[in-house]
Every structure is written in C-alpha cells, then in structure tokens.
C-alpha cells in the first residue's frame, strides 16, 4: 500500500513541476506587461512597479523565487487587487467552491448509485430503461444549458427557487448543486449499473442469497462493495471536471467562489492570480487523481 502511494507520488511530482514551469513560462511570455493598461504611468513609476514585483530580475531568478514561494504557500500579490495576495483570494474562494463540489458529489452519488442499482437489479425492464435514458440525457445536456434552463423554469417562470448568490437566501444552493451534479449523477448511474451487473452474477452473491439473507443486505452489504469500484475510480477525474465545472456554475449563479475568481482573473489579465490559481487547481486535480487511484487499489487488490 505504502509502496503504491510512493510510486504514484513519483509520477505526480514531476507532472506538477512540469505544470508549474509550463504555466510560469506561458504567463511570462504573454505579450504586453501587466501594467500596460494604466495609461498615466510614468517611466519612473513603471520602474518602481517592476522592481516591486521583481520583474527586472532574470527569468530563472524570478522562477526560482516564485517556486520557493509556492512551496511555502505564497503565490505573491494580485496584480489586479494590489492590497490582496493571491493566497488570500484563494482562501476566500476555496471553501465556497469546495462546499459546492461536495454537495454536487453527494447529489450525484445518491441519485446515480440508486438509479444504477435499480437498473442492474431489473435489467432490460422499464426500471432499467427510464433511468438509463435519462442518464444519457443528463450527459448530453451540458451545464451551460442546464443552468440557464433551470433558472428559467424554477426561478423565473415558477418562482420556486432563488437564482443567484450563495448562502444569502434559504434554498439558493439547490440549483447550483443540481446544475453541477447532474452530469456526474448520470455517469455514476451508468458506471454503477455496469459494475453491479457484473458483481450480481458472481457465485458469492448466489451464496449470500442461498444463506437466506434479505435482498437489501445482499445488495447493500455484499454487492455494492465490488460494484462501486468503477464509481470510485471515476471520482478522481470527476473532481477535475467539477472544479472546471465550477467556472461555469459560479459564473451563471453569481457565486463568489474560486471558479469565478479564476474566470474574472482571466478577463482582467491578472497574471499572478491566473498563475497562482492555475497551479493551485492543478495541484488539487493531481492530488484527487492520486487519492482515487489509491482508494480504488485498496478496495480492489487486482489493481495493485
């Protein structure tokens, strides 16, 4: 187990370094300096600014300074909001984005796993076709369509739910969670169905049934453990998708999370913010991939 973690870390760390280097070089090769927008900047002020942000130093020195800072959790100041550091912005936005992602995952697992189990228990019946066709729909209706449609139907036409904000009015977390979670619920349903169909045909399930265990016990205690392996393996890459999805969902619903900060930084060309949050996002994604690999391997010894 420990060996496996070490082996995966051995791949993850070079990848992370490569990503940091690549993003750093890309941001620094960007045409135009970060202070070009300010019209009235005199050469003296510009020189001062460059000095303050260490832009005069040779590239490798800037790079090593930056890397050293990143290791200590310091992503430097934000160009756009000079009074705030990038780390500060991340700490403000992250809890909100994380909360949203967790709700979406819980929603996806609850809906997806129960739909998948239902489909696997009664394959090729209505209980199978209806959830699985809905799942296909859920995959093909992207969040950029689902979000606005939900707002239009439940927010504007029916006036049941609030359509923006996060934690301001009761119920304003429902629509963002559904928008972000639906595609994952659909994937979970398909994966659970596949995994469960395979497990339910195996001998140990027949033994469990022959022992006279209740159907509930057979399914929940014995079969789900193996049947969920594909779902768990999917959760790592899903985390990456959820973070990217948060860009869209937070923009649509006006949620002040990390995803919206990122999109705003991209618009404002706030280079340090883009650089910092790109590296932060990449680290998160790589970490979650590692985590899901390890969990999948600990559940299913064949993967080791």
């Amino acid at each position, binding site marked *: 187990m420990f060996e496996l973690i070490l082996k995966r870390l051995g*791949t993850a760390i070079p990848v992370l370094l490569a990503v940091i280097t690549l993003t750093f070089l890309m941001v620094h*090769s960007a045409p135009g300096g970060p202070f070009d927008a300010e019209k009235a900047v005199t050469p003296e002020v510009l020189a001062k600014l460059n000095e303050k942000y260490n832009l005069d130093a040779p590239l490798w020195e800037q790079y090593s300074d930056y890397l050293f800072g990143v290791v200590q959790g310091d992503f430097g100041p934000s160009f756009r909001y000079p009074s705030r550091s990038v780390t500060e912005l991340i700490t403000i936005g992250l809890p909100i984005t994380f909360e949203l992602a967790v709700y979406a995952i819980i929603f996806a697992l609850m809906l997806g796993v129960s739909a998948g189990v239902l489909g696997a228990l009664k394959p090729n019946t209505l209980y199978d076709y209806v959830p699985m066709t809905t799942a296909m*729909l859920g995959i093909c209706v992207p969040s950029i*369509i689902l979000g606005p*449609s939900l707002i239009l139907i439940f927010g504007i036409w029916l006036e049941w739910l609030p359509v923006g904000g996060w934690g301001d009015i009761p119920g304003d977390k429902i629509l963002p969670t559904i928008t972000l979670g639906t595609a994952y619920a659909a994937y979970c349903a398909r994966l659970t169905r596949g995994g469960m169909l395979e497990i339910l045909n195996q001998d140990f399930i027949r033994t469990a049934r022959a022992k006279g265990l209740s159907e509930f016990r057979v399914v929940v205690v014995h079969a789900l453990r193996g049947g969920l392996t594909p779902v768990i393996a999917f959760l790592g890459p899903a985390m990456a998708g959820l973070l990217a999805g948060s860009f*869209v969902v937070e923009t649509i619903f006006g949620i002040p999370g990390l995803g919206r900060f990122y999109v705003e930084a*991209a618009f404002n060309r706030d280079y340090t913010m*883009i650089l910092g949050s790109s590296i932060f996002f*990449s680290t998160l994604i790589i970490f979650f991939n590692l985590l899901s690999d390890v969990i999948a391997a600990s559940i299913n010894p064949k993967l080791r």
Partner: protein
Amino acid sequence: MESNQPSLFKEAVERLTSNKLSFYSCIYICFILIVAISTPLIAPYDYAFQDLDLGPSPPSSEHLLGTDTLGRDLLTRMMYGSRISLMVGFLATLVALVIGVMWGTIAGFVGGKTDAIMMRIVDVLYGIPFIILIILLMVIFGRNLILLFMAIGAVEWLTMARIVRSQVMSLSKQEFILAAEAMGVRKISIIFRHLIPNAIGPVIVYATLTVPQIMLLEAFLSFLGLGVQAPLSSWGILIRDGAVSMEEYWWLLVFPSVTFSLTLFSLNFIGDGLRDALDPRSGP
C-alpha cells in the same frame, strides 16, 4: 485486405442502420452538416444584417426562430454558428487523429525502449489538467480560432495513441505483417499500407466520440467568453447570449440549446452504434 474491405464496410453500415437511434442520429447529423456547409447559399438573411427598428421579436413567419436584441435573425446566426462549432469539433478531432495514430503506430510497431519512452510521455501528459492550460493559452495568446482547435486537438490525442498502440501491437505479430517483412517491404509502407488501415476501426469509433467532447469544450470556453470571439459566433456564444436575455426573450436560449444538445446526443449515439457495428462482441 482490399477484397474484404467492401463487405466488412457494407456489413457495418447494415448493422449501424438497423439500430434505430443511430439511424435517426445519422440523418440528423447529415442534415446539420449539409445546412452548415451550404449556409452562405441558403441563409435567409445576411450574416451582419441588423434590423434595429425591429429589435428582439419572437418567432414569426419572417424570422422563423425570432430575432435577437440587435434585430439579427436567430436562424441565420445559428446556421453560421454551427459552421464554427462543427469546424472546431471536426478539425480538432482530425488533429488528434493524426498525432494519435502516428504516435501509437510508431510506439506499437517499433516496440522496445522507444515504445516505453513514448508511452511514458503519454502517461505523464495524462496527469496534466489540460482545461487549465487551454484557458491559459486563450488568455495569453488571444482568442485565436486556429490556436483553439490546435490546442484542443493536441490534448485529445492521448487516448487515441493508446488505442492505436494496442491495436498495432496485436496486429504486428500476425502473419501477414511477418510475411510483408520477410518479403522485404519497407517499414514505412508496412505502416501505411498494412498497419494503419487494419487498426482504423476502433480509432473511428473513438474519433466519433471525441467530436462531441471537443464541441462541448469549445461551447464551454465560448460561454465563459474565452473561446470564439465576435464577430464570429458559435453555438456556445449563442447560448451565452440567450442566457443573458432569457428572462424576456426565451427563444434566444431555447433554440440554440435544443439544437446543440441534439447534436451532442446524436454524435454520442452514432459513436455507440459504430462501436456495436464494428465490433459485434462489445456492447449489448
């Protein structure tokens, strides 16, 4: 090979069309493609035509799908938008296809250390969160359409390379390849004449499933304002514009959304159908 290809192809077409969902999906995609290609000839209005006096109007006999806030005909905008969306989807897939097939074939055919190094590179690249890198590219180098599909295509080739490699590895042990080698056929012609044509089936399936993924990615970026830029338009941009003004003008959101979802739906069904058609063992 030449002699058995037509019958294999015919059989695959028969299987594909016997699946009703795939069949209707094919018809829908053909329709969309024909409309997109012939747009300059059949579009009801000029692309840049604005009827500012009219402003936003609901669907009517003059403007079948209504007009947007600047009085532009929505149907015309959707037709021109489909050209960009489809072009990005297909061209980026082509880029991925070319890189992936070459990479996978060489790794699988040469084998040994070359293979180990080449596939190791693929493994490492797999770990990189590309959505972040693509957004960075768009921010830094401007929203350049060519750069956009080059970047997306350069990301999507990884799985393609893996599929091709495993195909080529199993093929290159077969007798007809050994015979070709024994007869002194040059390596390069073995690759192009024998290996690639025989490995192409699963590659086509994967490519069909890649097109909707890439179209989705483009729509996603355009929705955030980081993709295609005005005056060009794509389905992603139309959906964003529709979402902005949906409170008063629902048709601006509904028509592009439905068209786009149906396209994604159809491409996915064609991919699934092709997989069943080309490999009867997999799938139900």
